[in-house]
């Protein structure tokens, strides 16, 4: 069975943050828009309602809001020589599923990358010399500058209602903020989150050592707020169920709380759920897309959906998968370095030190996902890469985002993982530990990339995507550097004990433990069609009516959580489409 539906002006693949933003921006142009979401519909009521969403087993452990590997997964290998095997069970990262995408289950930590990160290769070459970049490291400039993107960061932060303390407004350093951040045109729309006990202890210790701690910018509202679309947020009630859960309280910025109800009021916008796009259909000459073909789960048939403009707004991995399946851009070849689609997959290098205090009560269940005190004293623009022998940086944070017990109770070094001593340990130490974490960059490399797997297929018979990725010496040196900075801070706080966890030499990528859902690259942006998959407006080089949103555009990973940059790039691309593309559809570069 198959059918062809009437043509639309725009088809949007995926209805998470970027699909919602592009949807409402283009709906304002009066275009006929259809969004296709492969997961189910989701709304605050009934899907995130109290008390049923306060269920650690169903959502935190069994991943109720995440993609099911049965429906969608990939294969992984660590070297070009290995045979990739499928990720049969979620672990390392947790792509979202359904309307709202990962925008419903994030913690809300919302950053702007440093100005230097947008032109990382140039920054390194100018300041430390090109010789410092290892031969197999394939970092690039983004093709867009922080200064160009600043208005779009501002737009996203005011739309999403971010709470924070500015550190640099138009070049003026602000007390209490991050003095190392790039200049912003105005402060955050909401004041920062209040200080928890662990944040206070860290702030005092970091300040005493001459560092510059500040409240972590947060998409957990601190006040009542109405955004540009008329959507309303209420102040966070610290329920302790943020990451992996939808927000019960209309407090966490998400497509549901910030965009969707406003978007659904446009008669020219519609969306279909349980509709998985199988491929982007190209014209016979390959120069444009004619629309998409998707699987209508309800009708159990393939649907051809013609459209003038195709927006890929799925998760980074799935955008790249669709490009590879559809012939958008030449697939990257790690042997020759030629080809662009799938190039420069990167991840995030994190580590941390856990501190145990018998006499402090951290009450970790009284938590919000973004609550934390951070410092950028060892950020990318603060490190002498030549002296330290690596390229990259981290932000360092103390913050407790939840106190859910199945997800793990930190125990002092040497405590067994089961038996009487484990039970005694959880009784003694639950609520008595805090952590200082390093959230770090990850460079891109010649042999870290995405392509199609030769063996495994999905439920539609399509090849799974294959990820080739491993940890590299440069990034391990970076995280070991952070360990050397964090441990003295921890020691200065005089805990009863502490333990560290940072990757060290020889660490191999392990898909089992959760690390982070900050997968980037594979659809990287740039100004040269020979080295990037999309241009600086996120427009496919070969098919001018295809735009690819999301973190796939990052040529290497930033040292921050990606959503701030993903949101800013979505507004940047939407603005280019509205102002420049729609009046005269053509390659914008």
């Amino acid at each position, binding site marked *: 069975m198959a059918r062809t539906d009437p043509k639309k002006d725009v088809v949007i693949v995926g209805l998470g943050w970027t699909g919602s933003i592009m949807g409402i921006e283009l709906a304002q142009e009066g275009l006929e828009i259809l969004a296709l979401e492969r997961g189910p519909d989701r709304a605050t009521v009934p899907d995130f309602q*109290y*008390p*049923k969403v*306060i*269920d*650690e*087993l169903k959502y935190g*452990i*069994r*991943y109720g809001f995440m993609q*099911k*590997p*049965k429906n969608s*997964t990939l294969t*992984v290998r660590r070297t070009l020589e290995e*045979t990739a*095997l*499928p*990720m*049969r*069970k979620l*672990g390392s990262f947790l792509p979202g599923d359904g309307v709202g995408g990962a925008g419903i289950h994030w913690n809300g930590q919302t950053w702007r990358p440093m100005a230097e990160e947008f032109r990382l290769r140039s920054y390194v070459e100018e300041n430390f010399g090109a010789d410092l970049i290892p031969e197999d490291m394939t970092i690039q400039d983004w093709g867009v500058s922080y200064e160009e993107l600043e208005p779009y960061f501002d737009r996203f932060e005011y739309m999403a209602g971010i709470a924070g303390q500015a550190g640099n407004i138009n070049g003026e350093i602000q007390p209490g903020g991050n003095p190392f951040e790039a200049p912003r045109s105005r402060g955050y729309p909401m004041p920062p989150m*209040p*200080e*928890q*006990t662990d944040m*206070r202890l860290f702030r005092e210790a970091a300040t005493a050592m001459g560092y510059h701690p500040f409240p972590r910018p947060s998409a957990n509202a601190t006040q009542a707020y109405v955004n540009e679309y008329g959507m309303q947020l209420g*102040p*966070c*009630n*610290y*329920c*302790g*169920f943020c990451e992996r859960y939808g927000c019960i309280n209309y407090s966490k910025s998400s497509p549901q709380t910030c965009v969707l109800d406003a978007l659904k009021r446009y008669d020219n916008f519609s969306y279909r759920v349980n509709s998985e796009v199988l491929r982007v259909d190209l014209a016979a000459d390959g120069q444009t897309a004619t629309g998409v073909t998707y699987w209508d789960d309800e009708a159990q048939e393939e649907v051809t959906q013609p459209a003038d403009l195709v927006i890929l707004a799925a998760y980074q991995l799935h955008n790249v998968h669709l490009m590879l399946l559809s012939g958008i851009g030449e697939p990257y070849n790690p042997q020759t370095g030629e080809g662009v689609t799938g190039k420069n997959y990167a991840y995030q290098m994190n580590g941390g030190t856990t501190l145990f205090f018998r006499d*402090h*009560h*951290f*009450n970790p*269940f*009284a938590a919000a996902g973004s*609550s934390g005190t951070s410092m950028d004293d060892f950020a990318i623009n603060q490190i002498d890469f030549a002296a330290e022998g690596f390229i990259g940086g981290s932000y360092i944070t103390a913050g407790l985002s939840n106190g859910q*017990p*199945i997800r793990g*109770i930190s125990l002092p070094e040497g405590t067994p*993982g*089961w*038996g*009487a001593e*484990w*039970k*005694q340990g*959880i*009784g*003694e130490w*639950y609520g*008595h530990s805090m952590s200082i974490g390093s959230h770090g960059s990850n460079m891109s490399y010649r042999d870290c990339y995405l392509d199609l797997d030769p*063996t495994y*297929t999905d439920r539609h018979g399509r090849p799974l995507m294959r990820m080739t990725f491993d940890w590299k010496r440069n990034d391990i040196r970076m995280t070991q550097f952070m360990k050397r900075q964090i441990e003295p801070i921890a020691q200065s706080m005089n805990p009863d004990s502490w333990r560290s966890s940072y990757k060290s030499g020889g660490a191999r990528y392990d*898909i*089992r433990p959760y690390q982070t859902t900050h997968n980037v690259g594979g659809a990287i942006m740039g100004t040269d069609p020979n080295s990037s998959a999309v241009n600086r407006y996120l427009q496919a080089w070969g098919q001018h009516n295809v735009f690819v949103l999301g973190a796939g555009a990052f040529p290497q990973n930033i040292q921050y959580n990606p959503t701030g940059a993903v949101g800013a790039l979505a507004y940047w691309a939407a603005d280019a489409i509205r102002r420049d593309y729609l009046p005269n559809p053509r390659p914008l570069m």
Partner: protein
Amino acid sequence: MTNPSSQPPAFRTSRRRFLGGTASVAALAGLARPGEAQDQPDPRAALDGYTPEFLSAAEWAFIVAATARIIPSEGDGPGAIEAQVPVFIDRQLAGEFGAATDLYMEGPFVADADPNFGLQTPLTPAEIYREGIAAFDQWCQQEQGSSFADLDASAQDAALTALSRGEAGLAPEVRDFWTHLLQNTREGYFADPMYGGNAGMQAWVYIGYPGARANFREWVGRDEPYPMGPVNIAGERA
């Protein structure tokens, strides 16, 4: 909860209601040790009214014995038996979790792959338990002369230690048996009671976790013990 006497009165009261006070906790601890003289009812009696949905009688005996060593009754706080963890595990194995409903189960399978590649067995979690229990019990027979459930506590601990280290001779297809058993035991200890474990929210009371209250704005930054006991998703208080 390093020092129960430092807890506010309300919390201590609720804890006592479950555990019957410190003195009887100590008494219970002795009771749960297999093979020791017991002059009070075995806490396992609380499981007697439950008819397993998935596990056979021998498998049930194994799960009861193994979880009782993973989270023993001795010492402060409930053990896996008091929390009725075996009920949780049986129900999980009888349901979607046991059937691998969400997992990618297409071949080819490389069960002996580097462990960093995660689960690569063709078996569902329910089958991992079924084959894992049989294989491990056989190993216990060979090494110790009896099935796991019939060993004394220290021999059980030694056998589980071998299992956890991958030294119990299990085939690659069931090498994740221990990981599942440990994880599911912790889940049954701490999950909402509607799933069959964490009976009476005892595990939440023990560590001081308030369960599904989900509203703590006034507790931000307060460096003192939280005074209220837990509630569950059904709205009951401990």
